[in-house]
């Protein structure tokens, strides 16, 4: 396109090349939070942007107040307003849903398209049901990929060896379903069928890996110990490459809590049988109600992703615990859109800020134990009463 057709004393400028014509397009359903989830890199390289996190949580709260009658009633009862949160930054003011509520009430709000009803394992008798629509599920996967990039590094050479069932057997059980998502990223094989761990096949698979393949063994700690014990009984050892291989545990011990082994014991077993140092054993934290995954770094610290707030509350009065002080863990997760991701969990733990020995910034979550006593569970019930008493 020639420029400068108007009469002018200036020299002709037709030699100036106009910017090439093009269209810029952007997905309508992609906001700043999505950009961080899907495109964010080095997200822990800078101190936590608290104002940004508050805004995302306030926006999520506003969304749920508009689309979720249950949460709207809860917020009304608590006198909560997103703008007040924006003004004060007081994350403890956000109304919470106890994890027990997901066992008794339908917590879904407005959903886009098909909804997957994700269920817990029902360790304590009743299963939680968490309704996830497409956007919520995609964001969950986004948190997984974001964490894998940051903490494990992405490579096409990785092979996932899952101590769990394949998708067709996983059904709606959230933990099993999450493990099947490895298949979307890596070449994956599953070593549990009909609830039976196939240790012999798993061992053969590891032994038969090509030299450049980088294995990640993924599974519940109980199944990992089962496999390592199976190796012990047969006197088997493998020397995996400590530069590239990982052992990833997830999901906790659940019904096999009586058999649990400590982290140092597990590290000893892994070192003895698979030849990997503790830095290559990584636990990941998630629960069915939580739409984000927390990854461990090489020092074994669980990093809170920059969009998620984790707050420990004192069981006595539900006040906010000091940094490092044990309390009931609550989560404010703005990535869930089909249900409120503002959860009071059944777990005790602590949160500390100030970064990590690994050099990453942000907050660190330390899990300590599950709620066990009636008194402790009473805290969650207090929260539920707000909901139950609300018409």
């Amino acid at each position, binding site marked *: 396109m020639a420029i400068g057709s108007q009469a002018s004393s200036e020299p002709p400028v037709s030699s100036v090349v106009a910017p090439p014509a093009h269209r810029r397009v952007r*997905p309508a*359903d*992609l906001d700043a939070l999505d950009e961080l989830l899907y495109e964010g890199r080095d997200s822990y390289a800078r101190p936590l942007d608290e104002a940004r996190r508050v805004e995302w949580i306030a926006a999520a709260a506003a969304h749920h107040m508009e689309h979720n009658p249950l949460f709207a009633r809860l917020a009304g009862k608590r006198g909560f307003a997103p703008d007040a949160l924006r003004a004060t930054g007081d994350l403890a003011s956000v109304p919470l849903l106890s994890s027990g509520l997901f066992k008794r009430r339908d917590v879904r709000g407005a959903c886009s398209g098909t909804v997957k009803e994700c269920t817990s394992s029902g360790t304590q008798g009743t299963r939680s049901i968490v309704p996830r629509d497409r956007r919520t599920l995609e964001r969950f996967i*986004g948190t997984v990929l974001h964490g894998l990039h940051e903490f494990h590094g992405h490579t096409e050479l990785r092979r996932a060896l899952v101590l769990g069932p394949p998708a067709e057997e996983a059904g709606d059980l959230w933990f099993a379903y999450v493990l099947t998502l490895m298949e979307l990223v890596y070449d994956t094989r599953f070593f549990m069928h009909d609830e039976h761990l196939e240790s012999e096949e798993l061992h053969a698979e590891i032994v038969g890996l090509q030299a450049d393949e980088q294995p990640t063994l993924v599974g519940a700690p109980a199944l990992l110990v089962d496999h390592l014990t199976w190796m012990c009984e047969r006197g088997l050892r493998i020397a995996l490459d400590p530069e590239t291989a990982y052992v990833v545990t997830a999901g906790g011990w659940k019904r096999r809590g009586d058999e649990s082994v400590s982290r140092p014991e597990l590290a000893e077993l892994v070192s003895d049988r698979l030849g990997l140092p503790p830095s290559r054993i990584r636990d990941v934290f998630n629960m069915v109600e939580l739409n984000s995954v927390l990854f461990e770094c090489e020092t074994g610290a669980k990093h809170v992703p920059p969009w998620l707030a984790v707050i420990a509350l004192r069981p006595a009065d539900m006040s906010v615990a000091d940094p490092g002080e044990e309390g009931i863990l609550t989560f404010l997760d703005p990535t869930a859109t089909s249900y409120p991701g503002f959860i009071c969990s059944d777990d005790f733990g602590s949160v500390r800020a100030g970064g990590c020995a690994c050099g990453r910034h942000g907050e660190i979550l330390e899990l300590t134990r599950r709620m066990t006593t009636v008194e402790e569970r009473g805290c969650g019930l207090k929260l539920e009463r707000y909901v139950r008493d609300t018409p």
Partner: protein
Amino acid sequence: MTIPLAEEQRCEAVSTVKGNGRRIFGLACTPADQDPRGLVVLPPGYERRIHHYSVLSRYLIRHGYATLRFDCTDHIGLSDGEIFDFTMSSMAGDVACATAQVPDALAELPRYLVASSLAARATVRALAENAPLSARVDGAVLILPVIDLQDTLRKVIGEDLIEEWRSGRVTDPRASSRVLDHEVAYGFARDLIDAGWDDPSGAGAELAQLALPVTAIAAAQDEWVRVDDVLAAMAAADETPGARDTVVLEAASHELSHNAPVMRLLMEQVLGALASASGEELAVEHLEFDEVMETMRSEREWKQAEYSDLTICEVTS
């Protein structure tokens, strides 16, 4: 409504042989319930294989196109050769061969190319230097096309392979350098120089020779390809008889597949470009979440089994 993969497409393995005797392994898929409106060839980018384009392929099939995917020769995958010997000229040869030699049942269909990253650059070369092939192709979509190979390689590898070879610091073509996950011989750098791939204006000049409609799709946050390079290359081709369209995806990087909303937008742009190339309009129907999951899972499993349950169609020139 969710449609099972097996009910939506029919696939067969394809085997063809390049001029240099190397065998190309491919996968041809057609809509199960309708005659295809066209054939879309999907050349794979560097370190990409057939299964990496499974979702794009299924989108195309849902909208009535047949697809042909393949693994490059001298690359990872089931085609002949090892990635150690990878060159851009070999990739361009693969694109030309796979596009020219298609199964008889698909040979009369309008033919399109949708190629990404390095394969997009190879596609431009393959079409520009082969007029009969270019005349046979009805449209091309270039996704995140690499334009300035030297700049992109510097960003990807952290070293300048081209300069190392050009300056004589490296003279052994069997010496190697790590390119992402694989060792690649310096024969790659030698080819880039000898065959003129290192000229950043080359892509624009070659595009200017193409009479077919071309759409280029760039990503605003692409860490490996400068958007301005794509715009400039496409602008250099403005005077050709073929239609040109350039789209910039905002909030997107070179790794598109990890960004679900951007992937949906990309599918709309690709399908829109193909429909436009044939003078049609097309309403885009997106895959359901479960359909995307099923497609990726099935094709990963298929790939791990090396497509052993498919019949193989031998294609000759």
